[in-house]
């Protein structure tokens, strides 16, 4: 076929209308009132770079939209009342049972409203997806260094979205007033009562008197459908506006610099891909809601404060503080006639707040340690910031261990282990695990950096094994294609860190300040950079190339007509000009 010119059908003719159209007239009407053209000029062809990992935040955004849509549907039938009624609906096993109107209406939605169960299950699945994708998106951002200047505030907004999303989930699964969620609220009452000084007052005000009262469901309802969604919407809007203002980060590569952004235009490609992806996220939640049962409240039955089920667990994203609560030793102290419940306060009221503050501050801590005041729009590979990567992996490990501790009873039953031993193990593991994870990850990253240098200096493995006349076998290495070599080396060298206590910058000037804080900073700088492998110097690179040429000469006599490029997947074969075949 003729590949020298473009087919006539694609994007070659200007989209100028031959005569004034109705759409044009409408556009004119709107622009004369709203000035849309000025905005459109800037944004319609706005460039978004392409990478699969940039899709994670999109999952969060779209699952939030699914939550709004399915949530509105549910409000049409849900009755947020703790008034007692006798159930007379379709679900036979509970007919005649006394329950709150909230639980009865949840049964009604599940059994008597057509599509109600689907919407309930989609709502719950989308909530899980929402929180999970926010977390993974957060990890992606941190691991690639996208939280650095100028995006620190967007990181803060993202963290607020995560915590609000988690609270939104908790208030949401508490609403049906089933036995499981009621147990969750009861535990929450215990947490509140453990607050020093004001605990009892807060509990009585929140529950409208003594637990359980009859106010908590309507109050959680208004928080769930008005207060938090309003905040979430506002913060999502701010998150998006900042994204548009900063323009998306991109991976380094040919033609990509700190001053440009390379990718596809918003209209049409990005709009189509993102819009299409909304339907995919929506469709996947529909599939989950149709096929996989979630939170079958009719099996738990209505809340009764004298009953509980074994294996009581919150939704997974509330699991880690619950795990901390489980492995905390039972310490309580009495001071001047007042009780302080360390066993509840530390794991539930203090630990999550501390973890959240650490999360919020990560970009600022890093900027303080590195002293970096430049804008960064090119992403880093996780291996090229070993200490940062190791920090997040340590936090993830701690999270994971706390989370596993939240299922210690399930682990004990499934694996036939002693719950006591699991608990003792976890007490140690949440301290030791993160330290180990930090060390291993940091060294792992450094090894990967070394591997990159190896490839740059000695070429990549072609998979072609050659036999010498003496019978020895060698694998042929070939130099990397120019674009790959450029991408691998398109990064900074880390500042030199001199010995243990004194950091000097590239010009050999000692870091200023000698205070205790400055000492800490110096030590952290050392930790940040001291063992990192830098990309090769020009001399090393030249030497490497000489060496490769020499080796090539030695192998020349052994050459087969195939030079290796045909099989390596790094190069296009000469006549092959089309992609996708």
């Amino acid at each position, binding site marked *: 076929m003729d590949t020298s010119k473009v087919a006539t*059908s*694609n994007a070659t003719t200007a989209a100028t209308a031959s005569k004034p159209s109705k759409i044009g007239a409408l556009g004119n009407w709107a622009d004369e009132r709203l000035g849309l053209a000025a905005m459109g000029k800037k944004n319609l062809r706005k460039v978004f770079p392409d990478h699969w990992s940039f899709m994670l935040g999109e999952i969060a955004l779209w699952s939030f939209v699914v939550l709004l849509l399915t949530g509105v549907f549910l409000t049409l039938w849900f009755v947020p009342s703790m008034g007692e009624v006798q159930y007379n609906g379709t679900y036979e096993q509970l007919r005649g049972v006394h329950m709150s109107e909230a639980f009865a209406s949840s049964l009604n939605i599940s059994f008597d409203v057509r599509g109600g169960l689907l919407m309930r299950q989609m709502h719950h699945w989308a909530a899980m997806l929402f929180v999970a994708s926010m977390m993974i998106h957060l990890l992606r951002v941190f691991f690639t260094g996208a939280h650095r200047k100028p995006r620190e505030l967007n990181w803060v907004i993202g963290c607020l979205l995560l915590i609000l999303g988690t609270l939104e989930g908790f208030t949401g699964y508490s609403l049906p007033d089933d036995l499981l969620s009621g147990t969750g609220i009861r535990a929450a009452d215990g947490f509140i009562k453990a607050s020093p000084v004001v605990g009892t007052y807060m509990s009585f005000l929140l529950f409208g008197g*003594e637990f359980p009262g009859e106010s908590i469901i309507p109050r959680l309802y208004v928080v769930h459908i008005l207060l938090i969604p309003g905040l979430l919407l506002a913060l999502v809007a701010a998150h998006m506006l900042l994204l548009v203002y900063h323009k998306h980060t991109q991976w380094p590569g040919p033609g*990509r*610099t700190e001053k440009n952004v390379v*990718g596809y235009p918003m209209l049409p490609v990005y709009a189509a891909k993102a819009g299409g992806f*909304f339907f995919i996220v929506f469709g996947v939640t529909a599939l989950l809601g149709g096929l996989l049962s979630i939170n079958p409240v009719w099996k738990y039955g209505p809340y009764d404060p*004298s009953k509980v089920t074994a294996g009581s667990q919150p939704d997974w994203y509330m699991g880690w503080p619950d795990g901390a609560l489980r492995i905390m030793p039972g310490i309580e102290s009495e001071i001047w006639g007042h009780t302080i419940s360390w066993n*509840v306060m530390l794991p539930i009221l203090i630990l999550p707040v501390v973890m959240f503050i650490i999360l919020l501050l990560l970009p600022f801590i890093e900027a303080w340690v590195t002293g970096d005041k430049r804008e960064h729009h090119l992403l880093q590979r996780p291996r090229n910031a070993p200490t940062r990567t190791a920090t997040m992996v340590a936090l993830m490990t701690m999270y994971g261990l706390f989370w596993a501790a939240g299922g210690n009873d399930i682990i004990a039953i499934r694996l036939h282990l002693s719950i006591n031993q699991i608990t003792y193990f976890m007490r140690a593991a949440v301290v030791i695990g993160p330290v180990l994870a930090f060390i291993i990850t940091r060294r792992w990253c450094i090894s990967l950096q070394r591997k990159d240098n190896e490839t740059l200096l000695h070429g990549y493995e072609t998979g072609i094994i050659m036999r010498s006349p003496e019978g020895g076998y060698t694998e042929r290495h070939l130099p990397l294609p120019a674009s790959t070599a450029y991408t691998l080396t398109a990064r900074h060298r880390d500042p030199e860190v001199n010995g243990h206590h004194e950091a000097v910058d590239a010009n050999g000037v000692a870091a200023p300040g000698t205070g205790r804080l400055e000492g800490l900073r110096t030590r952290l700088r050392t930790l940040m950079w001291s063992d990192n492998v830098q990309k090769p110097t020009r001399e090393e690179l030249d030497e490497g190339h000489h060496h490769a040429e020499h080796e090539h000469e030695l192998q020349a006599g052994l050459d087969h007509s195939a030079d290796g490029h045909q099989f390596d997947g790094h190069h296009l074969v000469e006549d092959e000009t089309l992609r996708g075949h």
Partner: protein
Amino acid sequence: MSTPPVIDGHGHDEPVDENLPERDDLYANPGVHEHLWRPTDVDPKAEKRAERQVATLFTLSALCTVLFVVCYVVVGPDETLAGFGAQNLLFGLTLAGALLFLGIGIIQWARKLMADQEIVEYRHPARSSDEDRATTIEALNTGIGESGIGRRPLVRNSLLGAAGLLGVPAVVMLRDLGPTNAQVTENPPFPGSGITNTIWDKGMRVVRDVVGTPIRPEDMQIGDLINGEPEGIYVSPWDGEPLEGVALQVNKSKGAVVLVKMEPEEIIPGTGRENWSVDGILCYSKICTHVGCPISLYERTTHHLLCPCHQSTFDLADSARVVFGPAARPLPQLALAVDADGYLVAQSDFDEPVGPSFWERG
């Protein structure tokens, strides 16, 4: 319209910080990859095929939507399909089909048929230009100066005071969210009100959970555990009527107990609790002292009671001492006696508050 790829050969082109090493590039920036035409760009057959694929996907989506409506009308609530509830399964599958085919179709359209040249846009620093900054600061200073807020501290301070004070009603008005513990203890709206007491009282029978029948000591065998309730929730000590609504829920959440019977010689009675048991029958609050879950998992050979929420374990033979887990205090014990009719009754209310700890507990 296609924008030709920009070949940017000027190195890395980025901001510099004099305290950090500048980026040295070992290779010249090769510039954006040359654009390669896709089969659908150069082969009309491939293009037509892609077009048909996209249209087919959209058609399948529409078909699923129609099927959804058909299912909505046709499928009854009790029908099952392959062990699933037919309604939920069919609604879910048809809706998922309608959405997924639409989404996949749009993305296929974008990937195969829409122009796929990468284009380059230039970034601007997030900060405003020096000129903008100067103008803004000047405007701000002019505005502040004209308002006179700096020159008239009396106006400024009284404004701040008045506006700040408006926060007080916002907090004060939350006061009626609920009564305090002191209020419900002093003027109980129903029997058993207040965080430090329960409905239990001298002579109140322990009755079986759910059915509400009283219990004789001889009804229980060694090793038995019975979930009990105060009789007062069935027969209010105030008016003899059963409790309802909030009164019932609150009293269930505080008054629930467990009765266990063990060999009398296995019991290690606490100080002053020597006569709290009847024939080896002991009675404890069912509400965990950790965060308040009702406890129910009993191991009869060890007399251990385990909380299913956070695994606090209590030794019921030894005044419900905590033997494992995060709870800090033993379960409160209810002193038992037998009334004239031979039924188990309480000697009094619990001698300490039940449930989780709180500041004023002491």
